[in-house]
Each structure stands twice: as structure tokens, then as C-alpha cells.
């Protein structure tokens, strides 16, 4: 086909794709939406397996004699990879306890992912989930171990404090953006560092430090403020359901409410939103406040729900960057973030088991996480590898979902 004809076809195709996707049956569309992520996961696991083989001494040794004994090389490689992945899945999905462990890992990830996702929808890049998480966790823990109250009052109070702490920390960045135009990337990064130091300091004060201890650790949260386990045989705390409820609520807020419409409008085009009479600054403040609150809850469900029930320096700050990955993987949609959080939970819960069983370093899961994201984000890449034609316009494959439209502009 000539280049010109090809081009014309593409223009027509682009013009028609909207109409065509509307005509598709819902079921087929939903199926189409699942094909690519599944293939993406398979591709990521395959490349991850390659990395395991390349770095495994035994397998490499076998490859050294590939030409004399190709069967051994392939067999050795296959057994190394299969062993690692079997251990990974057994300790994340293999039993009820393993599944509970996965869900426990997923809970704070879900909150943090929702936080970044919400900010994305308002056109803001929240790198500050780590700081908001630490401030939130510290507020919740303080309420948790300072007061003695009935569980019906104490727990909600601690949760509210966690949300408020995070919301305050996120809100500062939102306020600065709204009032002075200070870029949220800078202010949230700085907020992370400040929160880190603030926590360091708090852990040396009388109000926080556990009496009789010289190392920086708080008292454990009182029994009445802890998130209880659902049942003994399925040790998941109520925090999980809180996270799922938050995801549902966020979906409603974003897709069905006036406030959500305003958030999305500002995210899509702040100038147009302002012209339409919306308060862009107020929306920034609200979005960052809510995002911060969600990140604060990520820390809160941990400190109120994970044994030890106490804070240490740099508490769970590593989740801050996972949160960005989760929001991207979930395409800034609450449902997508839920799925992404479960996936990361599986990898996280399985990694330790894998390392114990097969000596494969836990860090391989980080590689797999990155690969999953790249394959999900680049459907064209997956199509090129697997040579599949997917349903055009299927949800979840939306190419051109832009997170960067607002980069730096305000």
C-alpha cells in the first residue's frame, strides 16, 4: 500500500473508531479489556524469568555447555524459573493464610495508590504520598496511644486523625499551588523530607517516645484503637474493607458528583475550567487535601492494624513511590488501582517466600512490577510481541490517557 493511501486509511480509521467502539457489545468490550493486561502480565513474567536465568550461576553454567548439551541448559533454566515462580505464588495465593497476607500487603498500597490517582485526575503530580503517609500515621498513632477510650469512639477518632494529618500535609502543597503557583512536584518532595525530619524529632520527644526506651520508637497503639482481624482463620483487618470502601467512594466522587466533575475539568484544562467559572485554586486545595488524607490513611491502617502497632523513623515511606506506580498502572481509575494494588500485594507477599525457598533476591519483583507497567502502558508493544489484534477503543487500553497535560502549567 502506498504511504499516502495508508495515511488516509488511518485518518478514516481514527474518525470511525469512536463510533465503532460505541457499537460494540459490552461483553466483548469487557473481554477485550482483559486480554491486554493478561498478556502484559505474562510478558512481564517471561522477561523476569529471563533475568532470573541470566543471573543464576547454575543455569549459566548449564548454558556454558549449550552446544554439547542443549537439553540440560534449557532444563536447568526452566527449573530455576519455575521453582522461583512456584514459591512466589505459593506464598501469596497458595493458601488462605497466604491470600490474607497478600491482602494485608495490598491494603496500604491501595490507599496510597488512590491518593496519587486522585491527584492525577486533578492534573497534579503527588510525589508526596510518603510524607503525607508519615504525618498521617503519626497523628493516628498519637491519638491511638495517648487516650484511653471505648473502641467505638477511639478507633474512628484515630482514623480521623490519620486522615486529617495526611490531609493537612497534602493541603499545604495544594494551598501553595493555589495561592502562589508553586509547583507541586517541588513542594511535595520537600514535604517528604520535612515530614521525615519531623517524625525523627517527634520520636525523641516525651509525647511520642516509648518510656524506658532509648531508641526512637513509640508506644504501641491502645487495644481500643486497633483495627481488628476479620476472623482468626482469615487474618485480614477491617482496614482492607475501609480501603475498598474508599475506592468505591472515590469512584462515586469522581464520576458521579459535581465536585468530581470540577476536579476532572480542572485536570483536563485549568484555563477552560476557570473560564467556566470554576474555582481552580479551591479545586487544587481540595484535591491535594483529599489525596493527602488518603495517603495518611495508608499509614494509619498500618500503624493501627499491623502487629508492633508502633512508629519507627521513616515509617513506611517506601510506599510513596509504589503509589505512583499503582496509580499509573490503574490508569488513575479507582477500580484499576484496586486491581494494581492486589497485583503488587501478590508480588510483595510472595517475594519473601520466594527468596527463602529459592534464593532469588526479592528485588526481582520490582523488576516485574516495572515490566508489567510498561507492557500495560504500551499496548502497541504487547500487540507487536503477541501479534494480536485487540478490540479498538476497549476500556483499559485507552492509549493517549495523558497524565502530563498539566505539567508545570497552572
Amino acid at each position: 500500500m502506498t504511504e499516502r493511501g495508508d495515511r488516509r486509511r488511518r485518518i478514516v480509521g481514527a474518525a470511525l473508531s469512536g463510533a465503532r467502539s460505541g457499537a460494540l457489545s459490552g461483553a466483548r468490550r469487557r473481554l477485550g479489556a482483559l486480554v491486554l493486561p493478561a498478556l502484559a502480565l505474562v510478558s512481564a513474567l517471561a522477561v523476569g524469568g529471563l533475568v532470573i536465568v541470566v543471573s543464576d550461576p547454575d543455569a549459566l553454567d548449564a548454558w556454558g555447555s549449550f552446544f554439547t548439551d542443549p537439553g540440560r541448559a534449557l532444563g536447568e533454566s526452566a527449573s530455576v524459573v519455575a521453582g522461583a515462580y512456584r514459591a512466589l505464588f505459593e506464598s501469596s495465593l497458595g493458601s488462605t493464610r497466604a491470600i490474607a497476607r497478600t491482602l494485608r500487603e495490598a491494603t496500604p498500597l491501595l490507599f496510597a495508590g488512590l491518593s496519587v490517582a486522585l491527584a492525577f485526575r486533578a492534573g497534579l503530580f503527588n510525589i508526596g504520598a510518603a510524607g503525607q503517609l508519615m504525618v498521617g500515621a503519626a497523628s493516628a498513632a498519637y491519638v491511638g496511644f495517648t487516650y484511653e477510650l471505648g473502641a467505638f469512639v477511639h478507633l474512628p477518632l484515630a482514623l480521623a486523625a490519620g486522615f486529617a494529618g495526611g490531609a493537612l500535609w497534602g493541603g499545604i502543597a495544594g494551598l501553595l499551588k493555589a495561592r502562589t503557583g508553586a509547583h507541586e512536584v517541588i513542594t511535595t518532595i520537600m514535604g517528604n523530607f520535612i515530614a521525615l525530619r519531623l517524625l525523627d524529632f517527634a520520636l525523641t520527644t516525651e509525647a511520642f517516645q516509648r518510656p524506658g526506651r532509648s531508641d526512637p520508637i513509640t508506644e504501641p497503639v491502645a487495644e481500643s484503637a486497633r483495627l481488628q482481624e476479620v476472623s482468626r482463620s482469615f487474618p485480614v483487618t477491617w482496614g482492607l474493607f475501609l480501603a475498598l470502601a474508599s475506592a468505591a467512594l472515590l469512584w462515586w466522587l469522581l464520576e458521579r458528583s459535581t465536585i468530581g466533575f470540577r476536579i476532572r475539568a480542572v485536570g483536563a484544562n485549568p484555563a477552560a475550567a476557570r473560564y467556566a467559572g470554576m474555582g481552580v485554586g479551591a479545586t487544587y486545595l481540595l484535591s491535594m487535601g483529599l489525596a493527602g488524607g488518603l495517603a495518611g490513611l495508608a499509614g494509619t491502617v498500618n500503624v493501627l492494624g499491623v502487629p508492633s502497632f508502633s512508629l519507627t523513623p521513616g515509617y513506611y515511606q517506601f510506599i510513596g513511590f509504589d503509589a505512583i506506580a499503582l496509580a499509573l498502572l490503574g490508569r488513575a481509575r479507582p477500580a484499576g488501582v484496586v486491581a494494581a494494588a492486589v497485583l503488587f500485594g501478590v508480588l510483595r507477599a510472595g517475594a519473601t517466600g520466594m527468596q527463602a525457598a529459592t534464593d532469588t533476591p526479592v528485588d526481582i519483583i520490582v523488576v516485574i512490577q516495572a515490566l508489567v507497567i510498561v507492557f500495560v502502558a504500551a499496548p502497541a508493544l504487547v500487540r507487536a510481541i503477541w501479534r494480536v489484534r485487540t478490540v479498538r477503543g476497549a476500556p483499559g487500553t485507552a492509549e493517549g490517557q495523558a497524565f502530563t497535560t498539566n505539567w508545570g502549567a497552572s
Partner: protein
Amino acid sequence: MALAAVMIVAFGFGSGADQDSTLVLNPRNPSVEVPDVTVPSRAAPMALGVVCALIGGVGLARGYRRRPYLALGVVLVLFIAALLIWAARGDDTNVLGLLTGTVRRSVPLALGALCGVLCERAGVVNIAIEGMMLSAAFTGALVASAAGMVWAGMAGGIAVGALLGLAFAALSIRYTVDQIVGGTVINIFALGITSFLTARVLVEYEDLNQPGSFGTIDIPLLARIPVLGPLLFQHTIYVYLMVGLALSVSYALYRTRWGLRVRAVGEHPRAADTAGINVTRTRYRAVVLGGGVAGLAGTFFSLDSAGSFQENMTAGRGFIALAALIFGRWDPLGALGAAMLFGFAEELQGRLALLDTPIPSEFLLMTPYIVTIFVVAGLVGRARPPAADGQPYVTS
């Protein structure tokens, strides 16, 4: 609005200056004898405070119409000087060491920000600086150890940075993956793969993580100037490369045909395309070049002084570089200046932690970040990125 922020900074400074104390300021120089400067600890900050208040007052009266940045900059410098004098009261503090450390620490930040300048001026948002630096730091250590030459390590690091730049360019330009997504992927991937390989390879074969390090190069004559010599002309190759690259990128962007094209592509790709510029190729080149610069920045971590690679040794500096890029308003020299400021903040932390002050050290440690927020809120305000930054260019 900027006025309000300026006022806050001036006020914050003013109260800081009123702290009473007894102290000595002591710049020292090991090679050439420079007299120590001793200032009265109470009067000096007071005087600085008065100057600041004057600047603030004049600014208020005249509405900061002219040169608001200059006034704010001066206030900031005075504030830091007062802070130092106060923190070191009764003691001495080596200001020269502080400044020299600043220059050194700003190297990866400045080079990282330069990478950002190259990419973003061409319209590609690059948040993968962190990942590129980390991978290059790892490769630098590995190659230098294997080859027994630090230069080989540097070359290897640059190559890996450029390679990741190519991968990033392919993702964001060829596959039109959202650039934030692509950048995040590279960051996560780099963290995962370097940690994985460290656990798998470097721990087992320790001699693969002994790259040695670059020595100091004294510039003849210039290095012997008192104060300025040790400050600017007794460094490793990286400091000279940093300054050289910042100047040449600045020249290339604003004074050459290539630079004009890069900027055109970043501001209005369609217009550039119409004028006959190959948008895709220009972006590819800029991103790969940027990747190489980030790679160079990465090798600084393992080859400048550390002499080995550690897991996640860049520790978020790629993001500080990103902040420096925005702070420097997408300009090479602005980025260099911003990187210096952040480098100063980093160095100041380490030193303040050593000094004995009545304020808990944690609060002193967070001062640089708070100052940065104030500066960004008041000084930079609404920074304007290249118009087409972050948008894939698709011909239809």
C-alpha cells in the same frame, strides 16, 4: 502575591536574626593563610536583620516592581549567613569547606537537571533521571572494576544512560506511552534490576565492586588563588565537566541551529514540522543525549569518592534534580544555579548536624527544605514550561 511571600521570608529571617548569641565565624584555608574572619555573634545577625528589613521596607514601599528576584536573593543569602553565624556561636565553622562541599554535592543535581533541560526543551518530560543515574552508577562501578580503569566506568555509565534514554524515547515517542508512565517505569526498573544484580552478583564477587575513584585535578595557577582556588579549581573532573556542560548546553540551545530546532520542537512541534524539522528525530536525539548526561551524573555516585556501588545510592536525587530543573525555569544556567542551592542545602544539613545548637537538630535539618518551599512559592511562582512539554507528537 509574590510580595506577600517575600514578606514572609523577610520576617522569618528577621526573627531568626534576633536570636542572641556569642560566636565566631571562621573561614579557614589549609594551604594559603587567610585570616580568620571573626564577627561578633550578636551584632552581626542583628545588622544583617536590619539590612533585610530595609530591603523589605523599600520593596514594600515601591511594590517590588523592579528586580524582585535580586532583593529576595540577597535576603536569602543574608538569612543563611545569619543562621550560620548563630549556629556556630562560640565555636568556629569552616565556611570554605561548606562551600567546597556545596560545589561537589551539586554535581549530580546539576547534571541531572541538565538532562532534564535537554529532554524537556524538546518536549519530553523526563522523570526517569533518577533511574538513569542509578543504572549508570551501577554500571560505572561494575565496568570500572572489571576493566580496572575509572574512565571505562564513566564511559560505560554514559553508554547505559544513553541506552535508557533511547528506551525512554522509544516508549514515549514511538509507542506514545505517557511520558510520566515511561519515566516511572524506568525508575522502578532501574531500582529493581540494580538491587537484584547487587544481591546476586556484587555481593558474591566483591572485587567487581571496587572501581577506585577519580582523583582531584588542580587547575595550574588558578588553584593557588586563596579561597577561590580550593573552592573552584581543586576538584575532580566532574566539577569541571558540570560547568563545561552547563555552559555548552546553554550555548547550544540559544546560539546554534540545533538548539533553535530543539526549542521549536518543544514549543510548537506542528509548526516545527511544517518548517521542515524532523520532530521525531530531534526528540530522539535530545533524549538520548540527555540520557548520556544523566549517565555521567550517575557515575559520579560510584566513581567520584564513594569508590563502590550501594543499593539505591542515588536516594531520590534524581527528583531533586527535577526540582532544580523547574526551579531553574528550564534553563541550563538556571538549573546549575538551582542545583547549587540544593547542593548547599544538602551540605548545610550535614554540617548543622555537627554543630551544637539549642534547637533540635531535626529542625535545623529541615530548614533547607522549608526555605526551598518559600523560595519556590515566592520567587519562582508560576514557572512556565515549554509549551509542548509532555505531549506526544502524532502526525495525522
